[in-house]
């Protein structure tokens, strides 16, 4: 499958562009790294230079520190590394997320990073790029994954909070602290005036989104609540890692829910031992994966992480040359089947 003209190949350090001598979302230290977005499995420490989007820069500064060597670009702005001409384009995954377009001698490859096609008030929508080869994620690469309308899910979350309120309980909603939590707060903003309470791990990400001018539901920190506050009827947003932790003792009467694409399957919800599962994902569902691949016009597709085998076979059946890159993406809390 590998040919001499391949613009991206895998190396032990990560996805590598030989013509530009740079890596994309590498998992080991390298001199030149192009970063698609700020999640921990894509943006790691130890790189010489970080190339990223201007919209995503504050997130990288938060997660990797302010003192790294960053080169930030606007969406669509062209730049050059080695022989490769690059540009970063919206992926619709989280604030500042990008696809990487690489062009050498008229051949175009696009590395999608993580992406979704649903509307998301917190980030620029996915931009379809024509290319020869498309490197796609496949986190939810089975046809059982089809996302409901997120605005409808947001209304269900409000209804659930109201049910909890009627019983004098707290509604604790687990959501990934970068992207998912802010998207939920943005979706909830038009539906309710009641502020949400935040776990401490949520504060920095929420502040960055607010600073970017994104309208979110008003929030308060759980840590700032008066001693003895029991939060009846409140919506509390916490990272999935808070489940089962001592922090939960603050809420003597509570229901718990998890917002994730994995909640599409009842078995995952039961295994998480939560009362409710809300299907909200920042990844492409199955129909979106197929539609996106078709829209790029790519004659060759390479899947990176997730349920790659079904997607690969479906694309081969559709007459598209398809392969797999083994990567170390997808060990993010949101990318893994929850198995607590």
């Amino acid at each position: 499958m590998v040919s001499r003209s391949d613009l991206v190949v895998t190396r032990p350090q990560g996805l590598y562009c030989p013509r530009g001598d740079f890596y994309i979302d590498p998992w080991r230290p390298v001199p030149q790294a192009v970063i698609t977005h700020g999640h921990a499995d894509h943006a790691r420490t130890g790189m010489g230079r970080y190339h990223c989007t201007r919209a995503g820069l504050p997130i990288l500064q938060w997660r990797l520190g302010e003192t790294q060597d960053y080169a930030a670009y606007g969406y669509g702005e062209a730049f050059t590394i080695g022989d490769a001409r690059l540009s970063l384009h919206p992926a619709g995954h989280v604030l500042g997320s990008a696809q990487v377009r690489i062009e050498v001698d008229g051949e175009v490859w696009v590395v999608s990073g993580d992406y979704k096609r649903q509307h998301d008030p917190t980030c620029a929508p996915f931009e379809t790029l024509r290319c020869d080869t498309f490197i796609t994620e496949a986190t939810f690469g089975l046809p059982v994954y089809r996302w409901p309308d997120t605005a409808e899910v947001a209304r269900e979350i409000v209804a659930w909070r109201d049910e909890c309120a009627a019983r004098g309980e707290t509604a604790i909603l687990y959501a990934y602290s970068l992207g998912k939590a802010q998207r939920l707060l943005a979706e909830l903003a038009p539906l309710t005036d009641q502020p949400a309470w935040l776990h401490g791990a949520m504060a920095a990400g929420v502040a960055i989104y607010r600073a970017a001018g994104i309208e979110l539901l008003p929030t308060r920190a759980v840590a700032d609540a008066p001693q003895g506050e029991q939060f009846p009827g409140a919506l509390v947003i916490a990272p999935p890692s808070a489940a089962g932790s001592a922090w939960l003792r603050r809420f003597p009467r509570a229901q718990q829910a998890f917002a994730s694409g994995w909640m599409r399957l009842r078995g995952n919800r039961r295994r998480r031992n939560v009362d409710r599962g809300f299907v909200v994902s920042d990844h492409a569902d199955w129909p979106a994966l197929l539609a996106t691949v078709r829209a790029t016009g790519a004659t060759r597709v390479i899947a990176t992480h997730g349920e790659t085998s079904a997607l690969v076979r479906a694309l081969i059946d559709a007459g598209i040359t398809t392969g797999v890159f083994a990567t170390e993406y997808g060990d993010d809390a949101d990318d893994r089947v929850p198995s607590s």
Partner: protein
Amino acid sequence: MRRFAALYTALDRSTATLDKRAAIAAYFRDTNPRDAAWALWLLAGGKLSGAGRKIAGNAELRAWIGDASGTPDWLVDESYAHVGDLAETLALLLDDPAQPDSEDLDLADWIEQRLLPVANTDEATRRAVIVGAWRQLPFDQRLVFNKLLTGALRVGASQRLVQQALAGLWGIDMALIAQRMLGDWSPTPAFFDRLRVAEALPGDRAQPYPFFLASPLEAEPVTLGAIEDWLLEWKWDGIRLQLIRRAGEIALWSRGEERLDGRFPELEAAAATLPQAAVIDGELLAWRAGEPAPLPFSALQTRIQRRKPGAKTLADTPVRLLAYDLLELDGVDLRETPLAERRARLAALLDAHSDARFMLSPRIEPADWAAAAALRDDARARNVEGLMLKRLASAYQSGRRRGDWWKWKVSPLTIDAVLLYAQAGHGRRSTLYTDYSFGVWDGDALVTVAKAYSGLDDTEIAELDRWIRAHTTERFGPVRSVQPLLVFELGFEAVNRSARHKSGIAVRFPRILRWRRDKPASEADRIETLRALAR
């Protein structure tokens, strides 16, 4: 259907018994008797398909959903393997209808007007009804509808919980509801109306009582107090049953709420000569006259399968009833009287009857708990499973209530076996490989000897799931064969010879005791070890 789907969703979602009970009570309070009868029947484990009534086979459903959703067969199979629940997979593969369903057909109408009329018709007719329903129903209703097609609901509401909810709703005795729901009944409004009558009805007399079941003893028996307060018996390895002799009527009921009439004519003949009307709880065992111990359970299996046993079967494998308890005598319900008194009356009844086919389960009287433990260790040699401990002051309760009746089983036999196959589990374990097949060495080949589903904790299950995915050698639909590398210690109650199993043996109640990370596959046990234990 909308309301029943909402009940299903509420039960499926909730982990709190009180909430579940409230949801059930609310449903039955506001539902018409036709729907209520079907809902109750489905909650009690009733299935629409099966027993000569075909609405949709699993293979047909997979083919139909493939066509309806434009998904190739292999991808339907792949999805099913991932989800682990066919009804759910079928629901997940379609998007919700664009137009919300304006017409809401009653559950009873769905069943009586759409599904049952097409049972056993040609494929095209059945398919049209089912695919039509898929196109019309939103996700929650589609899921429940599919559950009606693929088997039992299994939604985490026990019969007892349902009966508690109804007893609370109607203000009548739960035991009466439980008794009326035993055995076969038809989901009709008439049945449902009878169920809620507070007074005894004539039909109640033909019904058995709900069985009282013992719980496994996990603590040391010393914690139970003085041994003199307890009745100790052998734990016989047979079929628990209730024998009813009331006003000339004779019935045998298994614990599975099945009437066994006709299969054990020698017991019916013996019951006919009982001096008084009675309901006896006991254990059915294959036991030849003059022998000191019963035949193994496998001998009894040849009898269960025969609806009308011939003379040779009756001679080769005669059965007898070991009587444990007397629930009713001359029409008087004795369940609230203490066990000591019930047993005394049972002994007197059997004395007067004097028929070897009904035998009082012997009382064992060790001096102390240590002596009892010694007897338990010796259980396997007697073809029994261990000891039963019953508080002499106990009433005959219903279901598995802890506290008064304990089963104290002999320690299991163990072998080390190699993991060969895995299949995704269901419910809480769907999307995880949790149903395992194990083998032992036969020459230089591994032969499958046991399937086990339980025994690992959640962390081990998750770890093993990852290992299975990374070490799959072949896939057959939902089943994966794996490289034969991992060894597990399995526990089981007994080994029987079996012509139906390729290995020639069948293990009883296998479960995983631990993951033997210290052992390579080459050191797993050999089939000869199991054969030597077989009886």
